[in-house]
């Protein structure tokens, strides 16, 4: 078997979940004796590369300079390069299996090109978000009201984006679905996402759920201090969609006396890239808590630092206000053996079972989160019980096994 993995970014330059998952699959497959060759192709925006060109990065790893021309249709800026550079590349690499971990920034036409160049290869498309379904950053959140979106239809999408007619949305869906037909198998990291895509039109029998693999835990870091059930941590981007403001409001709701016993840490970056209104809101909410001593604003972290930081808290909080798919932070928390407190919807609600390996709260509801936090902090027994139920996520090799099983 000759494998090719295509990713919309290289982890050397970008640390999102999808590219990390793609790269981990690449590394796992490299170690296998039943795979003859593995190649990694990642999109880049490096300006020194000419548009469309494919360039070696290190052995078996290549970068592809590509962009989308049209985010609405997910259409490539340089279809010519699809036809020339990519075809040539595929002709040289000659994979028998192609694992496509994304089409964003590259163009959905990628799938058609792979099929036409390699009529006999197996094409596996992993879906990491709802981009094909939802024009709003793939989030399935209504555009102006920011309410959760439960169902797509051309009329409802038009209501979110009046500048596109319902017919434009029909054309978009048709274009994307026709290109999806060039893939043989679809992989989703969560049942929730799979269900969304099946409702949208993917054939259920070709759509499988495989969790993203995780690193094994560094054993020494899973110790627990006695008070850890009163220590809570948030790890991720400081954005409105990750629900950081909900968490801060919840802490305020707990009341000064009660929260004096508690300890909160917020780890993450990119607050400076958010809108002014959000920065102001976060500032107003967090500054008094920092002054009180109940909140530590720790700041950004490297992926390699994550386990050590997680080891210092008892609970990991994932208060996202949108569906999520399979947030990596939940798997990382489980690797670190930390129960998760999260919004009870979407991918979060699926990966964390309420009362089993974590606790759910009502999405976007700071009061409800406050109650759950109090309950969590109240008893070490609850923490121990939940911790005991945590199952290790798949490691990378187990994940690669499952991928290979699809194409054998």
């Amino acid at each position, binding site marked *: 078997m000759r494998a090719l993995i295509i990713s919309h970014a290289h982890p050397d330059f970008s640390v999102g979940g999808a590219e990390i998952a793609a790269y981990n699959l690449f590394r796992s497959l490299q170690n296998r004796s039943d795979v003859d060759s593995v190649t990694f192709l990642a999109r880049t925006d490096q300006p020194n590369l000419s548009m469309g060109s494919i360039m070696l990065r290190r052995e078996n790893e290549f970068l592809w300079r590509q962009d989308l021309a049209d985010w609405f249709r997910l259409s490539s800026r340089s279809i010519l390069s699809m036809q020339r550079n990519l075809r040539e590349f595929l002709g040289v690499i000659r994979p028998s299996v192609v694992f496509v971990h994304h089409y964003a920034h590259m163009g959905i036409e990628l799938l058609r090109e792979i099929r036409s160049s390699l009529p006999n290869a197996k094409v596996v498309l992993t879906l990491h978000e709802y981009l094909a379904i939802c024009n709003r950053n793939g989030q399935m959140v209504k555009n102006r009201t920011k309410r959760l979106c439960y169902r797509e239809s051309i*009329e409802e999408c038009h209501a979110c984006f009046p500048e596109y007619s319902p*017919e434009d949305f029909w054309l978009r869906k048709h274009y994307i679905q026709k290109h999806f037909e060039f893939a043989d198998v679809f992989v989703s990291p969560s049942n929730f996402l799979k269900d969304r895509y099946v409702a949208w039109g993917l054939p259920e029998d070709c759509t499988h759920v495989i969790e993203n693999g995780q690193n094994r835990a560094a054993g020494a870091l899973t110790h627990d201090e006695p008070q850890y059930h009163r220590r809570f941590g948030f790890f991720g981007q400081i954005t409105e969609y990750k629900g950081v403001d909900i968490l801060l409001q919840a802490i305020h709701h707990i009341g000064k006396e009660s929260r004096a016993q508690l300890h909160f840490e917020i780890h993450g970056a990119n607050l400076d890239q958010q809108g002014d209104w959000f920065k102001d809101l976060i500032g107003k909410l967090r500054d008094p808590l920092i002054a009180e001593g109940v909140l530590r604003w720790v700041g950004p972290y490297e992926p390699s630092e994550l386990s050590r930081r997680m080891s210092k808290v008892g609970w990991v909080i994932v208060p996202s206000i949108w569906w999520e798919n399979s947030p990596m932070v939940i798997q990382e928390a489980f690797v670190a053996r930390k129960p998760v407190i999260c919004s009870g919807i979407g991918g979060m609600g699926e990966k964390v079972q309420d009362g089993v390996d974590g606790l759910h709260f009502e999405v976007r509801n700071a009061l409800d989160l406050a109650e759950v936090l109090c309950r969590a902090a109240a008893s070490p027994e609850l923490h121990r019980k939940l911790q005991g139920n945590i199952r290790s996520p798949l490691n990378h090799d187990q994940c690669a096994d499952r991928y290979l099983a699809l194409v054998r």
Partner: protein
Amino acid sequence: MRTIKVGDPLSLDDGPKPPTICIDRIILNDGVQLLAGWTHACEISSFSCKDEPSRSEQRQFSRNDVAAGFGFDESQVRGFLLLWTGGSPESINLHLKVGKSFSECSVSRLGATQLDGAVAKDLARDYRDYLGLINNYFQESVCWGHALAQVASQLPPSPESKGHLELARGVQDIGGLIIGWSISGSSSNLTILSESGHQVCLDRAARWNRDDIVATFSDEYGNQSQFAGFLTSQHKPISYGEKAFLVCSESDQMHLLGSCEWSQAPKDPLSFARWAFDYNTPMSKFHSRLNEHDGPLIGKLIERHRLNAELRSSKVVEYGEQIQTPVCSLVIPLYRRLDFMKNQLLELSDDDYIRRNCEIVYVLDDPPLDDALRSLAPILQESYGIPFKIMYSEINRGFAGATNLGTREARAPLLLLMNSDVIPVETGWLERMIEQINASPDIGAVGTRLLYANGAIQHDGMRFTWEPSWNCHLNKHPNTGMDPVTLNVRPVTEEIAVTAACVLVRSADFAAIGKLDDQFLIGDFEDSDLCLKFLNRGDRILCVHSNNLVHLERQSFSSLGSSAFRDKVARYNAWRHEHRWKETILNETMKRR
């Protein structure tokens, strides 16, 4: 009976100052006769000619010049003017009353002249007080009109009527529209007179209410000041800069109300319509306004525009290796949007039958997109691997013109006329249509069910319904919006008409019936027009209901501007369609009861 000749006074007796009659002129014009002269000591009581005239009038007035010249008593001398229509100029007899007795003389035709420029000029000069009367009879004569125009600026204003010519705008060899306002009594006859001599009577004008005129004149004119605005037309050639006069005749006299100069209207039919339709005459009378005024003008402009289009070139470029003996040619005009092509080609390239048996002919009917499509086309061909041809038209021809152009390049015996926004979503649709047309030679056209983007039925065959407020039959799509799955229809039915958004015809038949009519404004009714042409020659029309194609419908229409204008364009097209097809529609509808 004595005979009187022109210019030769006839004395009725031998006395010193005998009763005398003299004919100064006999003027003939196309069934109208004018007899002018004078009498002394007698008068014309009546006249007769070979055939009974349909209308005649006589006027008498003083002729002091004659009295002075002949030494007659002024009170005894009367000038006369006799005008009549119908009745031949042969054997005119004048019945004279001389004192208490009667006499008769016949009028010699020698000296009668046809109304020409010089004659008209003299007439206008000599009968200043009777211009209105004479005009009532000689209105059709261009030389008379021209002569009248020469003196028009010297005419006195009217004591009874008010008016103003706002503009006269047209296209040289076709004619144009005249806009203004007027208030007049019932006995006034208003006309617009052009320097060339053509006249347009205002009683056929389309009228609308002018609040400003009502405000100014209602005190003086009361209700008459309502509906003062007028729009009328001249369907004869004009010259730019030529004067036009708004004149009225009241009791024999002619008065001047206003004047302006003819100016140039847009020659492009759509621009002309955009300008003309801006005059908001009452919509309830729009049909008759089209009949009388804008309709024929726009029609001629469209015709000329189309003829010019025929002469303009187009280039064909082939992309990929074309099928040598296709069974069916898909002819698809492109306008405004190219993105549909990708969706269409994604489907067509996925259809084995079409790949093996059909050729695709696109027609780019949008010159500004020429460059973009020339760059895009080779990429599309590479991407989808299905060959196609593109005809690049130098000018925009409209849906019908573009389709007709495309059929020139089509090589197959069958033609599938298809809109660029019709997207098949399954295979087998074209085979089902072809099967139907091949079943019998008397099948002229085969249409298909089409769905909206949301899955409801968009087209399932067409009907004609009578729209009273438009005075026309309109095309209706029954079952629009219904659920295609649960609607109980046979797989194939016979219809009175089907949409041309996706219709299969034989190439030879299509040429024989004159292809699509490209003279609707912008486009509309081409489909029913096509089907009616087939029905007229005894062919049948079928519709396949077991097909599911999506029609994204009229995405390009919104660029037309205001809905009021779009509405009027639609009404123009309906009017034109009705003119040609009313009888056939009634007959065919009756047959299907």
